[in-house]
């Protein structure tokens, strides 16, 4: 009954939200927040109306034909079967209409394809299933993960307003500066899309594509990955926060400060409980997608951690896998993505959780060991 009511409500709200009544936003492209996106929007609307007019004429003519030439008693249908002049005329007419569309499209295309350097250059790397942002000038680097929790996705908790379009750390950019994006990927092909910027560029391993924007208003802009990239393709949103240049400076300094603090933490003495607690959080954000909440994984593609001989007894190998990834599998290197503390904590967590504590050697990993691993590599 509730379902029927909801279906009804959906049908009604759709009829009502059709173009005449509601804002265009639900049914049309966004004009966006920069010059290029507005230009593309205008181009879109121009072609759209040309197509609507052509469509209306063709369909209207069809209705006329259906009504006017329906079979009647004693009909004598005409028997003509061509009219070369008319055929030539409409062929030329089509060509003219197409030229009218192609000319503005060409100029917009040239403006979109501007790969000159930006005031700020950001390297965007797609990973299964998160985005990495590296500010080439400011030397800030971080990962941006979906922050919508599993309870919302599984319909246990009510869904927040930005369901599936929210991240733990958005990309921050200053307004009124030319931002150039350098876009690539680490594993499979992804595509970085922010509709408000009219930027959609495939992130391809081994290639660096460019795109650019210059935002003139502060705000939060949301988009998604638009190239099928595996099972959690629908769960890697893009969130960009445009702030004033002053706030941007503050933010950059904060990020740098936090990096120093993080480094100090590796020297601290850690208890098992502390590591376990941090590790649980890290695991929820980074690992559950494949290895699952219960550590059972999804064999054969994603191996189980619970009861795995490697996790139980081979601490060194486990550190190596987290630091280097597994060639030819979805398991990537976390050396760049997570801090030493987080890596040590999540390894500790997997060695203690799901009864692994009892059946394995039960050893924990401390941040110092991760740091040592890194230093030995150098």
């Amino acid at each position, binding site marked *: 009954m509730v379902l029927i009511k909801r279906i009804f409500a959906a049908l009604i709200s759709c009829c009502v939200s059709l173009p005449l009544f509601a804002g265009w936003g639900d049914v049309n492209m966004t004009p966006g927040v920069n010059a290029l996106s507005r230009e593309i929007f205008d181009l879109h609307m121009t072609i759209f109306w040309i197509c609507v007019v052509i469509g209306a004429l063709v369909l209207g003519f069809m209705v006329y034909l259906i009504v006017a030439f329906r079979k009647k008693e004693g009909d004598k249908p005409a028997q003509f*079967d061509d009219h070369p002049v008319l055929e030539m005329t409409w062929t030329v007419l089509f060509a003219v209409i*197409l030229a009218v569309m192609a000319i503005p499209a060409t100029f917009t295309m040239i403006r979109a394809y501007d790969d000159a350097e930006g005031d700020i250059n950001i390297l965007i790397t797609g990973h299964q299933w998160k985005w990495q942002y590296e500010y080439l000038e400011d030397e800030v680097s971080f990962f941006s993960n979906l922050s919508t929790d599993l309870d919302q996705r599984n319909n246990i908790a009510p869904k927040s307003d930005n369901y599936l379009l929210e991240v733990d750390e958005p990309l921050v950019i200053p307004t009124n500066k030319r931002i150039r994006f350098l876009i690539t990927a680490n594993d499979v092909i992804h595509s970085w899309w922010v509709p408000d910027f009219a930027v959609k560029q495939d992130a391809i391993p081994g290639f660096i594509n460019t795109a650019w924007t210059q935002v003139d208003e502060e705000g939060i802009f949301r988009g998604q990955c638009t190239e099928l990239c595996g099972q959690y393709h629908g769960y890697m949103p893009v969130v960009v926060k445009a702030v004033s240049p002053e706030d941007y400076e503050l933010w950059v300094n904060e990020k740098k400060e936090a990096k120093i603090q993080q480094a100090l933490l590796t020297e601290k003495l850690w208890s098992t409980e502390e590591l376990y607690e941090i590790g649980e959080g890290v695991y929820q954000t980074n690992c559950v997608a494949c290895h699952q909440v219960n550590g059972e994984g999804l064999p054969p593609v994603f191996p189980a951690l619970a009861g795995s001989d490697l996790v139980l007894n081979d601490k060194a190998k486990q550190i190596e896998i987290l630091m280097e990834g597994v060639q030819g599998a979805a398991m990537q290197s976390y050396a760049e993505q997570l801090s030493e503390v987080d890596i040590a904590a999540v390894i500790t967590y997997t060695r203690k959780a799901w009864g692994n504590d009892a059946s394995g050697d039960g050893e924990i990993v401390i941040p110092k060991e991760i740091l040592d691993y890194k230093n030995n590599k150098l």
Partner: protein
Amino acid sequence: MSAVIDSHSDDHHHGPAKGITRWLYTTNHKDIGTLYLWFSFLMLFLGGAMAMVIRAELFEPGSQIVSPEFYNQMLTNHGLIMVFGAVMPAFVGLANWIIPMQIGAPDMALPRMNNLSFWILPVAFGILISTFFMEGGGPNFGWTFYAPLSTTYAPPTVTFFIFAVHIMGASSIMGSINIITTILNMRAPGMTFMKMPLFTWTWLITAYLLIAVMPVLAGAVTMMLMDIHFGTSFFNAAGGGDPVLFQHIFWFFGHPEVYIMILPAFGIVSHIIETFSRKPIFGYTSMVYAIASIAILSFIVWAHHMFTVGMPIAGELFFMYTTMLIAIPTGVKVFNWLSTMFKGSISFETPMLFSIAFVALFTIGGLSGLMLAIAPADFQYHDTYFVVAHFHYVLVPGAIFGIIAGVYYWLPKWTGNMYDEVLGKTHFWMSFISVNITFFPMHFVGLAGMPRRIPDYALQFADFNMVISIGAFIFGLTQLLFLFIILKSIFAGKQATSEVWEGAKGLEWTVASPAPYHTFETPPEVK
């Protein structure tokens, strides 16, 4: 001497074999056509069931009935099965049944190969579907199977998928060779090329497209196989390969492929509009040239599927212009159909209803295709539901309505009985309304920013998705009615005349209904 001739003619007039061997060993074009059509119908329901799973999952935001992983398997196999299992075999089935009868030939030129090209199809799809029951599940990388998602990151069953695609390709190539050979060599005396029925013309051109691009697809999957098992790096950037190369190869196959799925429908619809308007087709010559131009252009537009991969601007502009050119021959065809109806005497039996809906809704799909061709705007449309709306408009009310129209049109010729007109019209109206409820709102959610191939979506897309799902369920259920109508006409119904439709033109309407097991053993004379 005369005894020899007698036994020879006896041989010729035997009927079909009894039991299962009739179907396993048959070399009769009508039997093989029937097999193809039933196989395609089965695949339509299988692929349709997968679409129902997809729409059930998308009924509301949040996880509904399947996991994201299984959802990806559904959308991949929905695409593969509909393209390779439903639409293509249906057209080959129609070609088998109709082309020999349209050109006055006794059978296909290569009947044994005809048998083989059908019977390896169930094998291919058996292999494809069996992957669902293996460890790691079925293909989950989209029907376009972009590398490296389909190579380095694919489930282990991808090898079975590759093998299945090879077999499907072999079947298509053999089918095309057969069709080309038949049309070129076995036309009745007097049937010159420019007197050939349009369905035969469209299939002749389609068959050439198939022969040209199926080996390209085979090459692509072979390179995948090498990358997966033999250590090559065609598509692996880490080994010096190029993931974009895969897309270029795939779409060099893929774009002609989408015209393979629509050209024969153009032919079917041309016959039907001509018959029910009681007027000769307008601009036969320009129709033929338009089909040929579309086919030729289809080889130089492929990268419009790849505007966002980072091509140089010259590439973007080239593929934008060539793609826009396709609108010219396509527009010519639409105007020719309308001009055929102009000053005609139109009646609206079920095949005609489906054909008119074809012209109207294919026009909508064509116009959204024109929008997608505009490269800078495509940066906003690409990989959203706007694209999903576009290609479903040209494939469902396009290709599939064309097939359905053809089935209704020729069904009395196959079964000897008229189908139930009231049920047929019910089937049409239910399909017509629900297909629009399903696919029209996809334009809206696509423009508003919903990416395709996602198992869950943001809340602002919820209302339209529920409407889309309801439309899809109605459309799916309606096709059961189609099955019932066909079964009914096989077993009962008003006896059809040889002509079936008032004033229908073409050699297939000169033979009895149902068509005898062997037709045109003596070639007819075409004036």
